[in-house]
Every structure is written in structure tokens, then in C-alpha cells.
């Protein structure tokens, strides 16, 4: 009998602590599959954030250095510049990357840092208990938008990927989701491409992943998969947002 599916080498043998239906464990696995396929386990350094995935280092069998909230892009910059042969990726949530770390993210992209951001968009602050994130949808109820997000008071869901696409140093940006086998496969391809972009030394790459948070969305895992398709992907359309990896320069 032929073995066609097994645990990635760079994924530790340890049960995930994430809630049932959470997207983190799927995404962790995808990243590890990519690390194995590119054969870079001994070169990768991951930068996990505060939040649910603060314990990412329990699962990734690669070097990892925890970052302060939102500072992943700056930490990755310093690390990559000090050790250019390393493959450096940040793992950041929507609060981390699109609220407190917006500045660091935009400027790392603008410098064309050869780093990769894995941007988990689940429209809420997960670990702190489901507060409004910058990516929370309008009218969506969270613990800090108990009457629904009101654009007049709370602003609009922010589209970081589209903003970053305007930046010349960002060369590959794609938005995917992990709410179906097809989307999960697509997400893996995007992660692979993002890491390859870094290996080739072309510039900044980012994969935004719409990821379910059934606990804070107060849905079943199945409902949350459906909600990504029916609601979230309408505000945050899936697809390649920017790819100039084949171009000679940003202009």
C-alpha cells in the first residue's frame, strides 16, 4: 500500500490547542508542508505574534522568535538583514497586522524586505475574547460592537492586501481562505509561491487567509465555513491581488 498523506516533517507531533473548527491548525500544517516541499526546514525562522497563535512554536519544528504585538514585520526585517540566508516569515492576525502593526507592515513592504507575511484574517480579536478587529464586517456583532459594527462610529473593514498592493516593494499578494478543500489547496499554493518569492529574493510577499473562528463568531465549524463564503469573501474577495514576481522591476 502506498502512503499518500502523512504528518509534515516540520510539524511537531503534538496535539493542537486550538478550538474545534479553528483555521490556525490547518494553516500551520500547510506552512509546514510548504517548508518540507521547499526543503528549507533548517533555514526557516518564524515570527509568531501575541494571540491564539502565540504558541505556534509548539507546533512548528523550525526556529521561532516571538514578536511584540504588531511588530512582526520589524522583527523579521532585523532578523533577515542580520541573517540574509534565513527564510523569515511572520504569522500575524488581523489586529496584529492591520491595526497595531500597520506601520511596520507597510514600511517593511515598502522597503521590499525579503520576508513573507502569513496574515490570518478572522475578523475578530480571537484570544482576547472576540473584540472588533479592523477587519470586522459592517453590522457584525462583537464584544466591543454589541450593536453591530457601525461604519459611522467604528469605520469600515480595512483591506490591507489591497493597500499593500499599491506599494512597489510588495511583489506578491494573494487572498485565500481555508473553508473548503479546494480553498485549502489554493492556500497552500499561495504559501508556496510566497516562500518561493522570498527564496528568489524578489521582494515582500503576503498571503491573507480568511480563517474561521467559530468560537468568537458563535457558530458551528460548518456554519463558519459557510459564513466565509457568504459574507466574508464578499467584503474580502479571494484571488491574486498582486503578482509582479515575473516583472523586471516594480514599474
Amino acid at each position, binding site marked *: 500500500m502506498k502512503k499518500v498523506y502523512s504528518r509534515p516533517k516540520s510539524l511537531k507531533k503534538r496535539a493542537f490547542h486550538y478550538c474545534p473548527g479553528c483555521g490556525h491548525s490547518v494553516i500551520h500544517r500547510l506552512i509546514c508542508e510548504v517548508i518540507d516541499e521547499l526543503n528549507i526546514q533548517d533555514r526557516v525562522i518564524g515570527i509568531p505574534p501575541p494571540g491564539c497563535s502565540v504558541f505556534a512554536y509548539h507546533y512548528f519544528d523550525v526556529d*521561532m522568535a516571538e514578536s511584540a504585538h504588531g511588530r512582526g514585520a520589524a522583527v523579521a526585517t532585523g532578523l533577515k538583514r542580520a541573517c540574509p540566508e534565513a527564510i523569515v516569515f511572520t504569522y500575524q492576525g488581523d489586529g496584529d497586522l492591520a491595526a497595531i502593526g500597520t506601520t511596520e507592515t507597510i*514600511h517593511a513592504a515598502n522597503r521590499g524586505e525579503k520576508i513573507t507575511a502569513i496574515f490570518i484574517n478572522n475578523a475578530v480579536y480571537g484570544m482576547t475574547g472576540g473584540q472588533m478587529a479592523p477587519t470586522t464586517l459592517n453590522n457584525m456583532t462583537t464584544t466591543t460592537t454589541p450593536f453591530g459594527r457601525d461604519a459611522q462610529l467604528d469605520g469600515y473593514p480595512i483591506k490591507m492586501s489591497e493597500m499593500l498592493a499599491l506599494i512597489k516593494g510588495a511583489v506578491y499578494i494573494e487572498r485565500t481562505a481555508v473553508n473548503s478543500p479546494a480553498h485549502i489547496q489554493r492556500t497552500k499554493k499561495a504559501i508556496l509561491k510566497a516562500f518561493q518569492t522570498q527564496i528568489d529574493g524578489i521582494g515582500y510577499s503576503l498571503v491573507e487567509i480568511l480563517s474561521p473562528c467559530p468560537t468568537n463568531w458563535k457558530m458551528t465549524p460548518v456554519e463558519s465555513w459557510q459564513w466565509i463564503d457568504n459574507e466574508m469573501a464578499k467584503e474580502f474577495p479571494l484571488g491574486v491581488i498582486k503578482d509582479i514576481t515575473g516583472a523586471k522591476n516594480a514599474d
Partner: protein
Amino acid sequence: MSRVLMTGNAAIGEAAIRAGCACYFGYPITPQNELTEYMAKNLSRRQGCTFIQAESEIAAINMVYGASVAGVRTMTSSSSPGISLKQEGISYLAACELPAVIVNMSRGGPGLGSIAAAQSDYFQSTRGGGHGDYRTIVLGPSSVQELADYTHLAFELSDKYLIPTIILGDGMLGQMMEPVEFKHEAPKVLPVRSRSLRGAKDRPSKIIKTFTSNPTELEEINWSLFRRYQLIKKEETAYETLLVDDAKLIVVAFGIAARIAKGAIKNARAAGMKVGMMRPITLWPFPSEKLQELAKQTRNFLVFEMNMGQMLEDVQLALGDKAKIDFYGRPGGVISTPSEILRVISRLYYQNGLDNQ
């Protein structure tokens, strides 16, 4: 090497390069811009080195964190308001036991304050500065030569004890030009610490982290930090004394204030007053024991600072009621003159009847 004439800020830059600093991250703020500019000119194109003008002081200190994770010697510099922004990163560096050198060419505060030299960041520097129970080594130079020497020392201590180290200068030291001799040559191969993350090649993967969901684990981490702090106190406390042997009054001052006080003490001696000086070189650890030793023969101390009395508290903690402690300070970036300090010394000297003892 012969002596060269340089600004204090540039001297730090040159000394850092010669200490093997591979990565510098900065953000413009007066009065330390010459240092950032020196690194842009002299570090950015060196083999294996990096200079980034960061988007903020917060980004700069986190880039330092990243470079320190990778095991290279790394530095950032700023001035008071910018140093406030860096405190988050310094706390993380301290927690993760990551070496780094942080230069504060401090200016008048609070708020945006003024760009003139001040010493009002003493508390912030010597009490950790950011959140959590931690300390940083703090060096207080008082000349351009010392800025150069202590920059080298800061990298050495930082690597030795795995602790962020702060050079607490001020706008005057940074801007003034003096002859300086660099005692070290830049290393041919840049140093890389063994305890660093550069990919799990031929070894198990490693993590650098601060968060734990287990309070007892965190307590043990804090205990281990404090055991190291005790060792630093024992091994690295440094100070300078001047004319203390027969002194009836000892001026305690650090940094540029000590420089000003020296001039005043010289003139006081010429006028027959037996005045000496004690200058802490390490502001943390503070040389409390030396002060206690001095207090056995001298009862009168005058603390002089360019703030409203911050190091004063360390002197009071060290001496308690074992001595009479007076204070003279000016805040906000106003710089006292030696003749002003001489007047303060004379008044105290005669008011306390030291001329009759």
C-alpha cells in the same frame, strides 16, 4: 591610533563599528542625528552590515530585537521622546535575554520638551523603563572619549550578561567636539553569538519567547534575571572619585553634570575649600557601596543633576541618615555653569561650618 576631533555622536558611531556592530536601526530626532547619519555613511555599505532608517523608534527597536535574535551586535539610538517609544522593545529584549546597545542622547522633557541637554531620563533608564521587573545596564559617560570607550564597553557587557545596555548621554555630549582616540580596531569577522537563531541546521529547532501561561515558570525566569542582576552589581559597578581623601564635602554628579562640577571643584579647591567628587559611571548598577564607604569619613554630600532630583533618590537610598545630603538641580534643559555650582558649593560649605572643622 592618534587622536581625532569628532562630535560625541560621531564618536559613538565609529566606536560601535569598531566594536563589531553589524546592524544599526535609527530614526531622526535631535540631538542625536549625527550618529544616525554617521552610520548611514560608514556602516551601511560595509560587508555584512545593515543600516536602516526605520519608520519609527518602535520599529527601530524591534529591528534591533530581530537582529539580536540572529546573534549579531546591534544598536539603536534616539533621544528622550524616542526612547520612551522604544521601551516596549527594551522590555522584550530584557525578557528574552537579548543583548543590544541603546543610546539615549537625552534632552529636556517631559513631552516634546526641548532639544537642549538634560538628565531627566535617569529614572526611566535605571528602573527598567518599560513594563515588568527588569533592569538594563546604564552607562553615564561625561566626555567624547568616554562615549567612545563606553560604546565598546556597552557591547561587551551586553554580550557578556545577555542584557540590553543603555548609554545615557545628553544633547551637549552628543553635539560637542573633542579629541578622541579609538582603542579598538574593527574586527575582520563580525561576531555572531552562539545562542542565536539562524535556522535549525544540524541541531534541534529553538525558540525565543517571553510569554508563558504558567506563572511559576515566569517567576523562575524573573528569578534567573535577578540572579544575573546581582552578579552584574557585584562585578561591574563602576565609578570615578576625585579629591575625596580629605574632602569635607563630596559632590555626587554623573555625565555632563559631573564635567561641570569638576570645574567648580577645581575653583573651590583653589579657594581653600576641601571639596571632592564621586561620579557614578554605571548608573545601574549604582555604586551605593562606594558612597557608603565615602560617608565614613565625609558627612556632607551635594547631589547635582540636570533634573529635579532623580539620582538623588539613589544617593538617599545608599546613605539614609548616615550623611547630610543636599541637592541642587535645574530641569528642562537649562545647563548650569561651573561658577553657579561653585556658588552652591561655597554657600553649603560655609552654612554647614565646614571651614571650621
